[in-house]
């Protein structure tokens, strides 16, 4: 059990964060807390991808001219790094191991997406607070109860009739 945790420590953290985030989303009735949960949930995915990219003993995937080698060797190492996520190349071989840079790039995109989602979510919460005066789901449900029951629009926002 302990060795399993130490071997897969990052994945354990990913799972804990993921479940914490999901639980927060579903258990809280406050819109801000739900957004916090969503952020934690998305962050766990970032960590998951970054963990996938890590190659044991791998170097940062930066092409620097190796002083002891000819110019082409760096590119050969990059090719090796490309497959490193699939076939793990054990340390001690004469080619340099690189961590896979691709998941990092993907996660940069995913972070941007996450920020955009959070921004829209917060903007919506601001609007909800302006309109309802609360960000609690229960209060919002209570305020809208009559309208939901009758299936109507709010009486004061129904247009009288539009000129044709």
């Amino acid at each position, binding site marked *: 059990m302990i060795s399993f945790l130490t071997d897969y420590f990052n994945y354990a953290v990913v799972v804990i964060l993921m479940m914490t985030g*999901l639980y927060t*989303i579903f258990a809280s009735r406050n*819109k801000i807390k*739900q*957004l916090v949960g*969503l952020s934690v*949930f*998305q962050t766990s*995915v970032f960590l*998951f*991808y970054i963990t*996938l990219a890590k190659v044991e003993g791998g170097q940062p995937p930066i092409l620097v001219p190796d002083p002891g080698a000819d110019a082409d060797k760096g590119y050969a190492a990059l090719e090796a790094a*490309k*497959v490193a*996520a*699939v076939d793990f190349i054990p340390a001690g071989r004469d080619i340099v191991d690189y961590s896979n840079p*691709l*998941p990092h790039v*993907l996660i940069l*995109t*995913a972070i941007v*997406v996450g920020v*955009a*989602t959070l921004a*829209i*979510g917060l903007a*919506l*919460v601001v*609007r*909800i607070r302006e*309109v*309802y005066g609360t960000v609690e*789901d229960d209060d*919002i449900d209570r305020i*809208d109860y009559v*309208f*939901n*029951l*009758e*299936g*109507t*629009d*709010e009486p004061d*926002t*129904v*247009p*009288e*009739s*539009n000129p*044709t």
Partner: protein
Amino acid sequence: MTDLLAYYPPWFLEQGAALLPILPLLVGAILAILPTNAAGRSLSWWGALAVAVVLIYTSLGQMLLVYTEGPYQYFMGDWEPPRGISLDVDALNTPIALLVSIMAFVALLYARASVIAEVEPKKHGPFYGAFLFVVAGLLGMLLSGDAFNIFVFVEISSISTYVLVAMGSSRDRRALPAAFNYLILGSIGATFYVIGVGFLFAETGTLNMKEMAFLLSQLDGGSRVAQVGFAFVVIGLGLKLAMFPLHTWLPAAYAHAPSFVTIFLASTATKVALYLLIRFIFTVFDPSLAYVSTIVTYGITALAVAAMLFSSTQAIFQTDARRVLAYSSVAQVGYILLGIGLGTVAGLSAGYLHLINHAVIKGGLFVCLGAFWYHYGITRTADFAGLGKMMPWTMGAFTICALSLIGVPLTAGFISKLNLASAAADQGWWWAVAVIMISSILAIIYMGRIILTAYFQPPPAAAHGMTHREATPLMSIAMFTLATISVVIGIVPEGVVEVADRAARTVLPLGGL
């Protein structure tokens, strides 16, 4: 049809696949910064309409190209996979791209008058801009051959959709919580999808779906990692396409969004997610794998049946007409999922046909509902009393689409339900035939209730003195285009059935389960 290819310049056919997602993205950004005066508002609508016309032209060209010369891959920036992103153009996705373009065009016809009534004047430019982003995202999801690129397009379309739904708040404040719940559940869905893609990437080391499919097929019987990835992808897409227990975001979002947004979303958004599900189940994974076929046969079919029965029943008890149609949408997604669950060419073809038909029918119904709201401000089913006399032509179009939804002969809905039932019977799934019948009877109840109220109850006393009205010309064009299409498909189904068969044979070249 293929003669039409003569009207396309060769370079345009060559580059058309890239144009589909890029053009709305670029024009959308321009529309968002147009001036807010009357000229700018008008220009934003014309701009969006022009884009929709170009998209119809382009996607039709791509579809005909695939039909004459077979599927091909377009390399973005001439970078070959796995380094670059490829667009896979085949008989499965080009018809849906054409469908999305046509629905965008028809919805925009409706939008001219309704957006002026529903959206603040200074927000028209960004509103149409966000709409084009949704279109770009949907077309990107359809065409992209890169699993992570699809996630990005999913988020482009979803984030714009949240904004569009929330724009309904100037009419109905419940649009705000609806958009928020959609945002939470939609983001969970997209994140589940990206977790699944992460597992598949860990297993195969590639993001290109064709390579991924090849490498997964090399794993004898599939690995544990691929199985986990499959589960996450299916659940993530299930949230996006409103698979039965994951559909809770849909009714509120459809009911409270601006009517124009509802028309477009109801007819396209879930359909594109359904396409992705088909693509992942049948082309990336292999339905011959035990874990895939188990999920398809038992999991997806069970959820499909649950959707067809429970959501149809829920639709009966709704008091808001838009919610009736929203629950009905969940039920119709069930029909399409049943076609996928059958796993045969005939079943998938019927599901695909229903996907097309339902987009047309539900689009038409929501256009009519939007016209009722626009002229009389009504959405409750009880308020439909007398509408058959007050807006006879609009109610006529509504009735045609409603009959098509129920599946009356000579309408589009009949053809797809018949094909689905016969595909189920071929497999010996007689209980599925019974479920289709029961669900159709439930559809008679919930649609019939509205139609009976409209035709056989007198207009309310308050409506005396209200003159007989009809929808604006553009709205009428929109609703009658869709109603006519649904009848034409019902009378001359060969063309559309052929499209669906080609799509099904593309993903199941060996004949399915």
